[in-house]
């Protein structure tokens, strides 16, 4: 018996990193999983690796039409929809002075509005039969990062968007829960790209490592375990919460 038997999950950003790991782990616990991403090649590969309990759909979270199609494809493929994992996100270096309007707009469009679009569709569908929405915030949504202005702002918005959605659903008696996971620094392609674009990747890497008292680097599976918990009924009493999985960074 799997912990996620009977669950149908749509995982955005499912082609790599935290999205891919959580898709695999949800499926391993019995969920049927729709992997949604702009990256078709890797997304299809993850779905194929999981097997008959997974499928892939192309999704640009910044496009409403694309969202509508992805949700329709999920319901058609699996006969329902009760878990949404909003993993799609972008990370750009930039302070309030250095970042461009384009950086700002794209970050907000993907990280915030993309999550908002997903929540809106999920609530509309799930309010009848219940469900669980898991949004990826960040420790950067709790404490600001000087050189992560747009990213911090966007993740702070996701953190409170989550609570607002949670309260809205709960107050209406709908069994739709909405929670955020706030990861620390996790070894993902997004992070690799971020460091690769820095002037001194090694120095920045070491500075980031020092943020986490535990002294180990987080892997996508560390976040996947929390996503499984929030997706399944073990967390039926949990809504509007922010689950920090960060090697102790926020403890001090």
């Amino acid at each position, binding site marked *: 018996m799997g912990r996620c038997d009977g669950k149908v999950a749509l995982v955005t950003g499912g082609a790599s990193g935290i999205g891919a790991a959580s898709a695999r782990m949800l499926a391993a616990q019995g969920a049927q999983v729709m992997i949604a991403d702009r990256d078709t090649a890797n997304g299809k590969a993850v779905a194929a690796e999981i097997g008959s309990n997974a499928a892939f759909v192309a999704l640009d979270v910044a496009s409403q039409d694309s969202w509508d199609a992805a949700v329709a494809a999920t319901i058609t493929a699996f006969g329902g929809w009760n878990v949404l994992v909003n993993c799609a996100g972008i990370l750009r270096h930039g302070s309030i002075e250095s970042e461009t309007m384009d950086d700002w707009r794209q970050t907000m469009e993907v990280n915030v509005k993309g999550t908002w679009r997903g929540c809106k569709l999920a609530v509309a569908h799930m309010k009848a039969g219940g469900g669980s929405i898991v949004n990826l915030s960040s420790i950067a949504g709790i404490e600001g990062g000087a050189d992560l202005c747009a990213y911090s702002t966007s993740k702070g918005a996701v953190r409170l968007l989550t*609570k607002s959605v*949670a309260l809205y659903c709960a107050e209406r008696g709908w069994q739709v829960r909405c929670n955020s996971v706030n990861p620390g620094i996790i070894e993902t392609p997004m992070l690799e790209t971020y460091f690769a674009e820095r002037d001194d990747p090694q120095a920045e890497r070491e500075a980031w490592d020092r943020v986490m*008292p*535990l002294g180990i680097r987080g892997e996508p599976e*560390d976040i996947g375990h929390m996503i499984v918990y929030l997706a399944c009924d073990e967390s039926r009493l949990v809504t509007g919460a922010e689950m920090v999985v*960060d090697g*102790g960074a926020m*403890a001090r």
Partner: protein
Amino acid sequence: MSGRLKNKVALVTGGASGFGRQSAIRLAEEGALVCITDLNEAGGEETAAMLGPRGFFRRQDVTREDDWTATIKAVLDRFAKLDVLVNSAGVAAAADNIEDADDAIWDLVMDVNLTGTWLGCRHAIAPMRRAGGGSIINLASVLALKGEGGALAYCASKGGVRLLTKSVAVHCGNQRNNIRCNAICPGYMLTGMLRDFLDSLNDREGEHARIAAMHPLGRLGDADDIAQMVLYLASDESRFVTGAEMIVDGGFTAG
């Protein structure tokens, strides 16, 4: 059983009832060997009987340091190591506000909830270090995050547990001893502690409804809601989690 706690040895205080009992049951179901402690011997023995050969009960007063020493020794004698400590022994006092506060009530609540947890953390670290790491789980409360006028000592003690947890987590991280320390903040739960309080009231149903309405999900949780989080924090699934406060509260603190 899927073995999420395979080969782990756990010590659960307050194991005679409520969260403690249900946590012990879940940990054992997933493969752990569990020592349950409590002042309530009948309840503790009852929990131990539910666990069968996977568990045993020992009477423990968590406010006494010599009792902690003896309890840890008993766990090591029986199971040879300690991987998980669940500090769930706790007391609450009703109608305890800053004007009517009573010295004896304050001391009791602070001793059990805060000093008891502090002693547990202190005494668990050495055996966990020898075991190559471990997980300490402290039961805080949503009343560590929000105030309640009539729960003065309880709020103060649980606020203390919340930051005690983070300090221990940072210390252990700095020591690179692979010991994690996290808190769980439950909402109001329908366990013995709340039942006793409700039973003491004339308007039991009215107060139950008022408390349930404080939780946006509209109902009170039960011990298993907390035990599931205990399970996550006790297992290696949470190996990257330390110093965190995991809120399981029906949305109480979301708004």
